[in-house]
């Protein structure tokens, strides 16, 4: 006999509301249906209301974990529109910011994955080591997450000689930790028992469903925007793309942890080769007419920004495609045939990152039709 196990929008395993409906026979998942939109903030509509500098600050707040890469993608698209080129030192600093953020995002993922399989200690240890990276980011840009580091035409922070000491210490410790976690993730018997062979995505499927980022690289797809379509200063720093075979949760862990090691090398190169020069050039307030598309490699995969300007101060169209959107078909593929116990770890294996919702939504149990309460109705309900 099959019944529906609703997972989400509120569920301890999912940090952000996405709603999956699993029709299940016993413990085995037969069919998967999902609902997006709990997090739709109408950002693309808001882009059209704001001037370009303000749109940049909005872009930075789309994702709570990878806000830096969003602001880099957005600012580079606008610079392309405005025909402005950020100075070399600014591009190198943007690479430093992007890589530091990739390290702390992957460490965060390692903790969440450990939490999903019930390994609380690994969760605490990975997030403890992540604090060192956030301290470095706070020292450089003034805040742990929303860095406000970019402006059209350059960057607003700088790596001074007095920062170099701390940065190299943190990188050395991180390298040690990453190697240790790589060892733990791949050889601890209880972890491999839960992660090996779970949520498998074959390379053919990964290519057919156009998955991006570490999820695709875990299935053997050799694609990375940092090398294929270099942005910021990645053209001058060579990036060794890490892939793994198998496409299961363990392969995802291997790819992400080896990417941390790769990021540490990139960071060392970038900080050494930091060229002298200005931090930014001034940009026109009115952006000339035209359109620009820009792609970057966010920690979760390929992130695309598309801006159109009609010559005014405000973008006439702003489009963002976050990497998680591309990986949703991959979740469906991975979850079919799995058991309930595997839902959180398989969903977490693509490291989903959604954003937040506008209104309270009630899913009517039998008809399954959602009904949205506006602010007024919400207040009336409270007074009843």
């Amino acid at each position, binding site marked *: 006999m099959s019944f529906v196990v609703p997972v989400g929008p509120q569920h301890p395993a999912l940090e952000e509301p996405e709603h999956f409906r699993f029709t299940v026979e016993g413990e085995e998942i037969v069919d998967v249906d999902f609902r997006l939109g709990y997090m739709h903030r109408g950002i693309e509509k808001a882009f059209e209301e704001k001037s370009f500098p303000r749109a940049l*600050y909005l872009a930075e707040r789309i994702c709570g974990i990878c806000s830096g890469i969003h602001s880099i993608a957005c600012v580079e698209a606008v610079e392309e529109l405005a025909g402005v080129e950020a100075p070399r030192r600014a591009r190198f600093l943007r690479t430093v910011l992007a890589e530091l953020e990739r390290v702390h995002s992957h460490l965060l993922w390692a903790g969440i994955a450990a939490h999903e399989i019930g390994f609380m200690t*690994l969760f605490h240890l990975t997030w403890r080591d992540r604090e060192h990276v956030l301290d470095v980011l706070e020292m450089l840009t003034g805040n742990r997450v929303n860095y406000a580091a970019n402006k059209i035409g350059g960057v607003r922070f700088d790596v001074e000689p007095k920062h170099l000491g701390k940065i190299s210490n943190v990188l050395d410790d991180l390298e040690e930790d990453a190697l240790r976690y790589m060892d733990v993730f791949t050889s601890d018997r209880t972890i491999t028992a839960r992660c090996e062979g779970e949520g498998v995505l074959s390379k053919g499927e990964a290519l057919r469903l156009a998955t991006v980022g570490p999820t695709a690289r875990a299935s053997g797809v050799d694609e990375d925007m940092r090398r294929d379509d270099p942005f910021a200063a990645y053209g001058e720093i060579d990036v060794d793309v890490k892939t793994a075979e198998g496409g299961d949760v363990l392969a995802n862990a291997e790819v992400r942890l080896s990417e941390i090691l790769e990021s540490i090398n990139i960071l060392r190169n970038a900080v050494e080769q930091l060229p002298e020069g200005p931090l930014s050039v001034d940009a026109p307030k009115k952006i000339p007419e035209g359109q620009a598309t820009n792609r970057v490699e966010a920690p979760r995969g390929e992130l695309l920004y598309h801006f159109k300007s009609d010559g005014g101060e405000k973008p006439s169209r702003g489009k963002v495609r976050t990497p998680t959107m591309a990986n949703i078909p991959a979740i469906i593929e991975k979850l079919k045939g799995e058991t309930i116990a595997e839902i959180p770890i398989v969903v977490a294996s693509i490291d989903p990152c959604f954003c937040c919702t506008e209104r309270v939504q009630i899913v009517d149990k039998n008809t399954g039709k959602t009904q949205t309460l506006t602010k007024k109705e919400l207040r009336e309900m409270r007074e009843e």
Partner: protein
Amino acid sequence: MPKLIPDVLKNLFSKPFTLKYPFEKREPPENFRGKPKVDREKCVSCGLCERICPPGAITLDDEEKPVFDLGICIYCAECVDACPVEAIEKTKEYELGVYDRSKAISK
């Protein structure tokens, strides 16, 4: 044999990593973007900060001096960069919780 035992035992006998907030507080680094504060004498009331503030959190009061509405402010320190006379500085205060919204003001 579980891999983490040496780690875990080392942690058991070393000082915990976490702090007992609010008894032990963490000192933010040097250019931390905390609550913006204006030096009223230095300010020449040019209104540049009001125009540049992305969320529009700065309004000039009756004496033409900027007032920051901390409920709207996103602590991006654009005003600090924009001020020609460097009258606005970023403090290290980050405990900004208030019960009454009208008190969330930085004069």
